[in-house]
């Protein structure tokens, strides 16, 4: 597909037409494909259940915010969002802070077993959560952490720590080693050098790693649902329960879905300027 279009664009350029047109059409079509299902969800969230089920309308005829009001005033709903945000933040902080020194070690030194260790870390990124669901449940129950935010945060480090190490190692390899050596000659201790000089140099890497940790912890459902019941129940799990319990409250379901998109959209908005740069410098 790519080559056919490539030749076509080449032909078009030869005819000295601006190339941007073809690309713009492709991009508009692709973005339309991405946004249409999301639009449909937003559309439904602004309708009454009556309208959803009785007539087929492309936009809400009978605009209502009742679905959102239900969620934002009911603690069993909005606490889901709070819980999710708590464990996602905890996880991001833990993952990035333990990954930083490890990534530095992998990028600068060779030591016994380093390659094996690195691959073993990566295997945890590959592990299917379904394999770990039951053992995690038993493990965290036995140490009394079941249904706490920290349990979910720790469980998610299983795949986020390896990912953070992997990303950060890629960024740190790009920083010349002479910088370390100069700093040591200038009398910096390792700790001070790392925090004062090195971390600012890889700040975009830290940003990208944090972004991915946030992302994978925020979207995960199987483990977070298995490890919680009431106190730390994530919003995603609240949604699944409500679907089965009340059956067909489509409007509220859609509104809850729309609200889960917002934190992600905000994060993207904040990192928008260096996400492409970050992708390019790092490995993910």
């Amino acid at each position: 597909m790519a080559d056919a279009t490539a030749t076509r664009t080449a032909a078009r350029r030869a005819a000295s037409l601006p190339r941007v047109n073809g690309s713009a059409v492709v991009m508009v079509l692709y973005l339309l494909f991405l946004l249409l299902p999301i639009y449909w969800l937003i559309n439904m969230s602004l309708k009454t259940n009556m309208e959803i089920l009785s007539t087929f309308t492309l936009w809400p005829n009978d605009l209502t915010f009742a679905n959102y009001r239900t969620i934002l005033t009911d603690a069993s709903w909005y606490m889901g969002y709070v819980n999710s945000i708590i464990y996602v933040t905890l996880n991001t902080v833990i993952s990035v802070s333990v990954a930083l020194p490890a990534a530095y070690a992998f990028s600068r030194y060779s030591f016994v077993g380093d390659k094996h260790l690195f691959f073993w870390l990566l295997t945890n990124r590959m592990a299917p959560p379904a394999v770990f669901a039951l053992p995690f449940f038993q493990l965290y129950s036995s140490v009394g952490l079941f249904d706490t935010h920290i349990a979910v945060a720790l469980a998610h480090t299983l795949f986020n720590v390896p990912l953070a190490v992997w990303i950060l190692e890629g960024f740190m390899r790009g920083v010349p080693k002479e910088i370390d050596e100069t700093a040591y000659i200038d009398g910096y201790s390792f700790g001070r050098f790392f925090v004062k000089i090195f971390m600012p140099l890889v700040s975009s890497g830290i940003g990208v790693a944090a972004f991915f940790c946030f992302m994978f912890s925020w979207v995960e459902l199987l483990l977070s649902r298995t490890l919680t019941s009431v106190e730390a129940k994530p919003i995603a799990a609240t949604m699944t329960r409500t679907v089965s319990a009340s059956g067909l409250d489509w409007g509220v379901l859609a509104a809850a879905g729309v609200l889960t998109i917002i934190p992600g959209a905000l994060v993207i908005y904040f990192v928008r300027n260096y996400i492409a740069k970050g992708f390019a410098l790092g490995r993910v």
Partner: protein
Amino acid sequence: MEKTVNQKAWFLVLPVLVLVAFSAIIPLMTVVNYSVQDSFGQNNFFWAGLVWFEDLLHSPRMWNALGRQVVFSSIILAIEVPLGIFIALNMPKKGLWATVCLVLMSLPLLIPWNVVGTIWQVFARVDIGLLGYTLDSLGVDYNYTQGFYAAWTTLIVMDVWHWTSLVALLAYAGLQSIPDAYYQAARIDQASRWKIFRYIELPKMSGVLTIAILLRFMDSFKIYTEPFVVTGGGPGNATTFLSIDLVKMALGQFDLGNAAAFSIIYFLVILAVSWVFYTVMTNLDKKDGV
């Protein structure tokens, strides 16, 4: 870069090691334990050897799920990788429009997986969904809860919707790292668009593309939430992939021995394929000197 040999570096790796050991090795040992024991309840376990593995390898259940999984992963890789590259080539290079594209394209990646399922479940419904309704009024026999092909198509389109952007963003990052001088040289040589793609862009993207393929392979092989929400593994067992089958076995039927043996085989399959990818990738790294 030349690396110094320094065994003290282990201290820097220690926190990661402790953390991951806690959340990976202990649970994994539990699984191994279950896979070689049998129980008559009340926590009385006795040694069962490799019975579970033998059972599993002789029953069609796991093979069927594995077959479906392989077909699914192959299809989505075959669609998402070329499409992702194609989209990346068409993305604007800089300016406001580029930012808009980046932000909108990242959007599906940050939607919780069950919400992705919900979105498509609603979108594809014949009675209230835009897609289902449109197809239905066009006279297409489309019902993803009953039709085999409809269910598969829905899941594949959903996955393409969900993950193509990741491939595209990675490929785009690879493209961004190509210096302008390369393109100028190609222009002087009057290289065709195809030649530019084949000899400049594709080699420069090979690193990120291997990562993209590795990530997409691993994640599609682990897929659970989205098909669970949309089809629940049905109609029949048509979309029961490995994870869905495993969760059914472990948490639904509490068939611990079988489930544990299943887990181990499942994990080993992913590990083996990923190891091949990883080896290829590190070799590429060495060749490019990245």
